[in-house]
């Protein structure tokens, strides 16, 4: 058991991170290499400065809760969405427990969140996943586009949080839950570049493109680079 745990927090941890970061980087590079000014009909290069402004603005605005007309139009989903994403981004990176493992393997660590805040964020993430799943079932306009794959992705995200929270309770079976937590967490890292979770990186690419598109081609010269998202 102890050696399995050591494997999971040692080599398996390193490999998962490697797959995650290299995989997502490759996807980003391939995205941008695959852009084609003729096919998209957007003259990126000659208008790069304007495009950058519009692209970064488009990324930034959509990262703000209720920052865009789109977010404001759907308050329930927006709240669920940000509940899920705040935890999903911050907890894996800044949990003190994760940083200990990071330090052991790489000799450095990131700043840590206060444990109470991390707990809260993790709980909110699970609640966010729950309501997003419920919304998929409840609303006909979401149900029609929902597939099993969408639930798989939600589960892939929720499992590390649920198992992590249970382990955190230090109930009976702590070791079991901790191992489940590490396995599901690493599974998520490994699968991210190959699934819809690639949006972790590709969100920035896709949002940049549409922002640049509007800034360069669709009116940027008269309305300014920043589209009124």
């Amino acid at each position: 058991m102890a050696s399995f745990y050591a494997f999971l927090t040692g080599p398996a941890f390193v490999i998962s991170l490697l797959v995650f970061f290299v995989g997502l980087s490759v996807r980003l590079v391939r995205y941008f290499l695959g852009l084609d000014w003729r096919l998209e009909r957007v003259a990126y290069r000659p208008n790069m400065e304007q495009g950058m402004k519009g692209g970064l603005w488009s990324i930034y605005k959509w990262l703000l809760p209720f920052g865009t007309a789109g977010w404001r139009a759907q308050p329930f989903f927006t709240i669920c969405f940000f509940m899920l994403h705040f935890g999903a981004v911050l907890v894996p990176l800044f949990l003190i427990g994760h940083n200990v493992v990071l330090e052991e393997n790489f000799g450095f660590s990131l700043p840590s969140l206060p444990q109470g805040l991390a707990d809260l964020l993790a709980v909110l993430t699970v609640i966010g996943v729950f309501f997003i799943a419920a919304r998929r079932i409840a609303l006909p306009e979401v149900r029609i586009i929902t597939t099993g794959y969408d639930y798989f992705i939600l589960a892939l995200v929720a499992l590390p949080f649920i198992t992590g929270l249970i382990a955190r309770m230090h109930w009976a079976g702590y070791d079991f839950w901790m191992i489940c937590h590490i396995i599901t967490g690493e599974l998520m890292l490994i699968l991210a570049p190959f699934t819809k979770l690639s949006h972790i990186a590709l969100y920035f690419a896709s949002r940049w493109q549409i922002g640049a598109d509007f800034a360069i081609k669709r009116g940027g010269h008269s309305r300014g680079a920043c589209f009124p998202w």
Partner: protein
Amino acid sequence: MPEGQFCNKKPVETEEELKALLGDKGGKQYYEEMLQLDVDSDKLWETVQKTCKSRTRTWLEICAHCGMCADSCFLYRVNEADPEQVPAFKIQSTLGEIIKRKGKVDNAFMRRAMEFAWARCTCCNRCSQFCPHGIDMGVMFSYLRGLLYSQGFVPWELKIGSGMHRVYQAQMDVTSEDWVETCEWMAEENGEEWPGLEIPVDKEDADIMYTLNAREPKHYPEDVAEAAILFHLAGENWTVPSKGWEQTSLAMFAGDWGACKIAVDAVYDAAERLRPKRIIGTECGHAHRASVIEGPYWAGRPDGRPPAEYIHYVQWLAEALREGKIKIDPAKRIKEKVTLQDACNYVRNHGLAKYTREIISYIVEPGYFVEMATNREYNYCCGGGGGFNGIGMFRKQRNVALRTKRDQILATGAKLVIAPCHNCWDAIRDLEEEYEIGIRWTFLKPLILSMAIVPDHLKPQEEDEE
């Protein structure tokens, strides 16, 4: 059966073919042949592989199926929240499936896709403003139209439309001679009232080259006259080209990219031949899209710009009013509730909302202009965009689509709608015909003409002497 006589994978290239196709009233035989048309799966897949690159593939892949696009789509809203009208569903079940199945789709699939591409999306691009990933389903539907067109699955009217561009370099059968004659006729017809009025054809190095929509010379020659009178009134040094005057592109609605290039090349050639300082296009939305926004790319221009500064009529008009080239008689300003239709193609997709509002500020008495609820970039399509207006087999769906604009207009309480776009103008005319809500609708040109101050030196001589 493979290719039909009318419904096939070949574009219409000759006048003879075009006339034969037109002779098939309502596309009766055309659509019968379509039932039998084979899908060339290998060619379809080859085209997808060549033209569907990271942007579109990423859009289709990372779509989170969150459904935030549903409410953004006026066709979803106006069709009683039919889940089959959710933009993500519409594109995933058509273009998404073609890619998933590597092009191995059948005739029934393609006919369904045709209905989705032309009757369930007007390419207004509004959904792109509501998707967290910035997925633009209007852009993808336009791409899908290209794939469908290349396989022969295109509405009859649009096959004709793109054929018109190929045969006449215009969306209607208006030849260069017809056009020049119309110019002479209109100049003459209005010469008495407007001494010195000219429609200079092919004048080199003018300040302005004016381009327009073929339906103006064909059906509304007074629109050509009004444009001429307003340039005359503003004292502009302007011209029209004898060739390359047609600014629109039904080929863009059809997804016939070859014809799109032919059309825009003709306009750009005229600009290079006549070397105007600026080109001004008429009050049309899709014409602006085709010749100013998308056109440079079809013509292969790496900077994404037309060969000369190319502006919309509303930009010129705002400037003419701002600089006092045209003065409005304050007594004639509009003193009734009036609203404004934002055309997707130059407002959402080209940022020109401020110019129409500036014009309004000069011609409407303060307090009488009422914005539609959700306007500017967030406007709704008129209901007839993207070719929807002109497709007979989808008329029923189009008439349902008009209800969005009907209700928006009713909510303003205005009885007058300014619609500086041919497509929007048509849709609003049709919605009045269909739903009889008692409104009037107008382009800007006649409106301005009815309230402009005419300086004495431009008035007919007799009047001065009397």
